[in-house]
């Protein structure tokens, strides 16, 4: 395998790596996917239908092991007794941060990456997002607009299968949706209350990459509610369920797991990346692979880390870093603000089935006019349900009547939590720490990232508005919270290899092509020039498909 020159090498098999594999193999290229972690065998590794009584700690988790090996990853709710195996071992994958500026870096490192455990929420950007930097004089302008990416949103949404409700909102463009999932009784009440009370905001069902009917040979969701544990029916989008099988069908895909990429090999005369240096994840042997085209899809910070570690005498601060922007302009969404309360009525109704989706309140702040003392805006994800037996831990009593109470559903609860946009800031960055190495001897990242006053002010507004909206919905016992999460905690990290028109101020051009190396494309979250407030994965998918289309057309023209 080491002597073969592939048409394309793809680093990573997650959301974007899977898409690159599908697109490039379907366009006729022989492709090698280098995945740092292990293979995943659905029949063996998926645990979505394992009954809770078969788990040793009944979902109270293997506490000692979790604290020992995943002291950071456990900040993600899904890093639990069932799905903890889809998150990295923190002992093998250390990193550091500047004192006082903690960063919660959540990672997957197996075939499929974080596409196994992602939240599946999918919302398009609009020009409100793409134009913001230019209009506000912040960072640099995006080199694209909505019209450039719209056909690619169409394309990836059509393949993945996105369910949702068209709402006609200019700043949350509709896609071609599969039927929307249902709202619960109280969510419908909240939606109706908003229609009466607000003219600037709505409640809609979540738009998500979960199938509500059979789609391209994949089964519709059966509402077991545990997508992050795997899905043997392929009913939500992940590389394992959707893109990798399509790539496999072409016969032109090779996957090499346990392939930890150390650095890219750059030929300074030819101005090309000629290949990739790999440390075998199991044997620690050093290997090289060659290709005409390289796609970095290792996830935002891992792709940048590889570029930083690929420094040459010409690029002492990292390959493809003539701009000096590599590692800089790190962003994430902020969470930690929201409200919840009890809603009256529907005592004789219950949800049936476990919906892997919630409701969404699209951004209403600073949309038509600049309203507040902060720029940009936020959206809310929300959910509802009836109190169940778990409330027994806060109820007095015991015996037959207590037992009966616990299996009688409690009141309906509804809650919302915000996702806020983060401004790009050169001062938020990562650098390589050559003193602190990971389990494969590769330098780790050191983070310098903190929220600005813009994020803090926005976080307060998110809580304030959430409380008011719960009151408008008629909730009682409203509990409001406002405690901004650490950068990284939203697991929407973006930036550090941004796109732009000018090679002096950006790493990638409008097609995710490195300004400094024509045959190198970077299409994961590292490419993002600003962050919007919506869940970003569908945008990463669209950019990847678009970049693949461009790369292959350039290849065919002899340009690469």
């Amino acid at each position, binding site marked *: 395998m080491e002597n073969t020159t592939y048409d394309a090498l793809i680093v990573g098999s997650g959301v974007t790596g899977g898409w690159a594999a599908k697109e490039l193999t379907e366009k006729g290229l022989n492709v090698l996917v280098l995945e740092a972690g292990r293979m995943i065998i659905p029949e063996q590794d998926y645990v979505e*239908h394992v009954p809770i*009584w078969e788990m*040793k700690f009944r979902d109270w988790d293997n506490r000692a092991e979790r604290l020992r090996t995943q002291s950071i990853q456990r900040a*993600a709710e899904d890093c639990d007794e069932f799905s903890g195996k889809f998150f990295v071992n923190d002992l093998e994958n250390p990193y550091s941060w500047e004192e006082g500026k903690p960063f919660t870096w959540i990672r997957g490192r197996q075939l499929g990456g974080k596409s196994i455990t992602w939240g599946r929420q999918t919302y398009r950007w609009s020009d409100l997002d793409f134009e913001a930097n230019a209009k506000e004089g912040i960072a640099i302008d995006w080199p694209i607009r909505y019209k450039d990416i719209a056909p690619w949103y169409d394309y990836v949404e059509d393949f993945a299968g996105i369910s949702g409700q068209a709402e006609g909102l200019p700043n949350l463009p509709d896609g071609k949706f599969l039927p929307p999932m249902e709202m619960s009784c109280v969510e419908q009440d909240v939606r109706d209350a908003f229609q009466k009370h607000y003219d600037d905001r709505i409640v809609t069902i979540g738009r998500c990459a979960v199938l509500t009917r059979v789609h391209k040979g994949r089964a519709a969701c059966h509402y077991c509610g545990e997508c992050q544990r795997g899905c043997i029916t392929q009913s939500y989008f992940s590389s394992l369920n959707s893109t990798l099988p399509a790539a496999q069908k072409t016969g032109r895909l090779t996957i090499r797991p346990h392939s930890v990429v150390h650095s890219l090999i750059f030929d300074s005369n030819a101005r090309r990346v000629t290949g990739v240096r790999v440390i075998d994840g199991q044997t620690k042997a050093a290997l090289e692979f060659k290709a005409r085209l390289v796609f970095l899809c290792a996830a935002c910070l891992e792709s940048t880390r590889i570029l930083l570690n690929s420094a040459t005498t010409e690029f002492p601060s990292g390959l493809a870093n003539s701009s000096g922007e590599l590692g800089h302009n790190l962003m994430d969404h902020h969470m930690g603000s929201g409200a919840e309360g009890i809603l009256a009525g529907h005592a004789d109704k*219950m949800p049936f089935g*476990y919906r892997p989706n919630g409701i969404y309140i699209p951004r209403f702040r600073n949309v038509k006019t600049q309203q507040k003392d902060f720029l940009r805006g936020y959206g809310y994800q929300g959910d509802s349900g009836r*109190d169940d037996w778990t409330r027994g*831990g806060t109820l007095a009593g015991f015996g037959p009547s207590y037992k009966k109470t616990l*299996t009688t559903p409690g009141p309906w609860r509804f809650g919302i939590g915000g996702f806020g946009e983060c401004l790009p800031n050169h001062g938020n960055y990562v650098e390589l720490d050559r003193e602190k190495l990971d389990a494969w001897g590769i330098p780790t990242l050191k983070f310098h990232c903190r929220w600005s006053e813009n994020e803090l002010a926005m976080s307060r507004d998110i809580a304030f508005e959430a409380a008011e909206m719960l009151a408008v919905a008629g909730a009682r016992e409203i509990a409001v919270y406002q405690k901004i999460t650490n950068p990284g*905690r939203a697991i929407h990290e973006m930036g550090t290899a941004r796109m732009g028109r000018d090679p002096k101020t950006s790493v990638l051009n409008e097609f995710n092509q490195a300004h400094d190396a024509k045959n190198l494309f970077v299409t994961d979250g590292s490419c993002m020039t600003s962050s919007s407030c919506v869940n970003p994965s569908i945008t990463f998918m669209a950019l990847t498909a678009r970049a693949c289309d461009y790369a292959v057309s350039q290849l065919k023209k002899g340009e690469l």
Partner: protein
Amino acid sequence: MIDLIIPMTDTPGAKAARVNEFMDVILTDWATDAERTRFLKGLDDVDTQCHALFGKNFVGASTPQQTAILQALDDSVDWRQGPPADPAPSFSGRRFNQLRGEFFRSFKLMTIHGYYTSEIGQTQELKREIIPGAFDGCAPMASGKKA
């Protein structure tokens, strides 16, 4: 004690659901040394209390006597308050605080968790379906659907 908290009714109770085995696993492989010690002392205290009141230890006492002890224990806990918070303010993941509170709070929490996550609890009492097959956001409860 577990069977007094979740007794047999029209469905089996905590003893039939082997909640004691779950508690053993938690005490052996999950609890910290301090949590285990506090819990075992709490069990001892129940016997001490029972001796003081009725002249026998808990397993030897009559059902009304056991119930009285349990009532006193249940009354002694402020149930509206959860267990003491994990001292890690900005951390948002699971906190492993189930055994941080007073003895009877931990005991009751382990009992209900052990019961409602058991096969009996899930299939017979809650009638929970792992594969519902559909989603209805507002389904009538008439068919005996449980929490």
